[in-house]
């Protein structure tokens, strides 16, 4: 029996519109993704790829200038795009939680740790303060914060960066969500602290049956933590599929170039393979494939028309003309969002 996916994005699009209505930035452009319960998905992209906007879109916490202009987001079968604000409030924090990059900005400096960890419990489950604090203490223990009893009454500025990020994680899992979205959660952490933290996330995931979405620019995190990978460029998903398959045989030139440009510890003194050019300006995208100006394998066709998503293998998607199955004899499968 194949279970329905926990989260399914179907041709989702989010655009930023300037005040006069003149400039449109297609921050998220026809994105389709699928995530099953308990799985870990990595969304990789650089600045301007749209990955953070995608996270905000899922939780419907977009800034006023941004609008969802198309598509569906099915979470446990319900379309989040169609939900009202009041309904989303019940989902945020309780069924889908999010942790962000900067733990100091995520915690209110004026409230105690206990208050902040207990807050979602009191809001969503209506518990009394005493009960909520007890649960908060247990949560702090589960994220491996030593002497949680004393920590409850302390303030964020008294904690180190690594501890703050764990507290943010505790807040995230406080109401037992099904999905946790982590947007660059370890970028500000030291290496050894990052190792501790990623291990913690993996253990929490197994203990609670949590699905994780990692939004990051760091392919190393994806290699370590993720089952599935989606690579974003200029607002579109250019490649997606299982992590090891993509690392072994990337189907999109951008993914391939990205993997080749990263220095490896086991390298001999080889020159790194750099990607020419600059990341795209989302308000002035070229016609055709957005990566064509920088692509070492660009065809004339790539500048004329943007490729639709093709399926080079079962369970993989690549938006590239080079991934198009040859028409000779084979059936032309174009993977649509509903496939």
């Amino acid at each position, binding site marked *: 029996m194949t279970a329905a996916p926990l989260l399914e994005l179907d041709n989702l699009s989010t655009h930023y519109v300037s005040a006069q209505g003149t400039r449109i930035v297609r921050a998220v452009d026809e994105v389709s993704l699928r995530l099953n319960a308990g799985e870990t998905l990595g969304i990789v992209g650089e600045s301007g790829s749209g990955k953070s906007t995608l996270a905000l879109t899922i939780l419907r916490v977009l800034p006023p200038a941004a609008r969802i202009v198309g598509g569906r987001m099915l979470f446990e079968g319900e379309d989040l795009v169609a939900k009202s604000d009041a309904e989303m409030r019940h989902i945020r924090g309780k069924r889908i939680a999010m942790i962000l990059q900067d733990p100091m900005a995520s915690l209110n400096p004026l409230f105690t740790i206990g208050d902040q960890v207990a807050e979602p419990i009191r809001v969503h489950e209506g518990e009394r303060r005493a009960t909520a604090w007890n649960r908060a203490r247990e949560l702090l223990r589960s994220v491996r914060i030593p002497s949680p009893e004393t920590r409850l009454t302390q303030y964020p500025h008294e904690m180190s960066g690594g501890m703050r990020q764990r507290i943010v994680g505790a807040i995230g899992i406080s109401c037992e969500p099904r999905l946790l979205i982590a947007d660059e959660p370890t970028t500000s952490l030291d*290496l050894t602290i990052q*190792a501790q933290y990623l*291990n913690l996330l993996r253990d929490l995931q197994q203990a609670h049956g949590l699905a994780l979405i990692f939004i990051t620019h760091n392919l190393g995190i994806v290699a370590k933590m993720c089952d599935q990978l989606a690579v974003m460029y200029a607002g579109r998903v250019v490649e997606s599929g299982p992590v090891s398959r993509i690392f072994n045989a990337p189907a999109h030139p951008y993914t391939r170039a*990205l993997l080749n440009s990263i*220095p490896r510890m086991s390298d001999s003194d080889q020159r790194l393979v750099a990607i020419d050019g600059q990341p795209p300006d989302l308000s002035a995208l070229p016609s055709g494939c957005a990566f064509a100006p920088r692509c070492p394998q660009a065809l004339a066709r790539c500048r004329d028309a943007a490729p639709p998503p093709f399926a080079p293998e079962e369970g993989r998607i690549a938006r590239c003309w080079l991934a198009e199955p040859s028409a000779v004899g084979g059936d032309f499968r174009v993977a649509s969002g509903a496939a």
Partner: protein
Amino acid sequence: MHVLEAAGLSKHFVARRGLFGADRGVVRAVDGISFTIARGQTLGIVGESGCGKTTTAKLVLGLEEPTGGSIRFDGRDLKELDATGRRYYRKSVQAVFQDPYASLNPRMRISAIIAEPLVQNEQLPAADVRGRVLEMLDMVGLPARAADLFPHEFSGGQRQRIAIARALALSPRLIVLDEPVSALDVSIRAQILNLLRDLQARLGLSYLFIAHDLAAVAHMSHTIAVMYLGKIVETGEAKALANAPKHPYTAALFSAALPSHPDERREEIILPGEVPSPLNPPSGCRFHPRCPHAMARCAGEEPVLRGVEARIVACHLYDRGGEANGGAKPLEAVANAE
């Protein structure tokens, strides 16, 4: 002959409460470190927050004065330099910093930015200065017309190239690179790292390369020094150190580096606890509270840097009872033997 030699270098900050308050303590940001940078080579420094690598960079650049120890440039001690000597040092050691958006004065044109070190230190006619600016732009792969533009017209990677062009203007011998690519997009980092290596090969530059991306440091450096709480715990040839670390902290650090492939299996060494505050370092070996191999001796006695098979390590694991019992040779003996 080394370009730069630091011996017993220290920088202590006094942490004071308020304007007239009593001293709260001493932060030993850098506490007696020694390293050398050879001509045309790169020394990489790795370590986590509070290890002192940024302070070390500032000491080398002359942005801070050391409280102890010495820095010798081309064999001459910096403290003994007169004004001309100090000016020569300034011209020979330049820097590239992390944030390309804050490294360039937004109100100055690129040509003025690149020319500033020249204008401050040499009396050249304007035509020569302009010629040098164009030469620098060419060396970093930017078109000549960039000279008349302003920083905001460039992307992050391009701005970092401009910062490198400026650092090269005086034909320095040593460039301090403090996280030069951390703020750049992943696809741009390789461009800049390649550029830096090309420039090193072409111009015989030495680099002091500080970064938290271990793979990048291992890729760029000839020698790596690992710092922890103000001390160097291990120094050695870059690839060898990365693949076979000797100090337990180095081992933990490199095992924490993210893999480059999902099938890459690495021994996971998870260190307990947090990095202690430099205000209150642990006694004896500063790493002992978190070290998986700590012995009784480690809490009381600080280990000395010793040579161990072409590596220099400060750890009691390599010092069982001194030379006579087959332990490591002390540092001076190793240096003299070379």
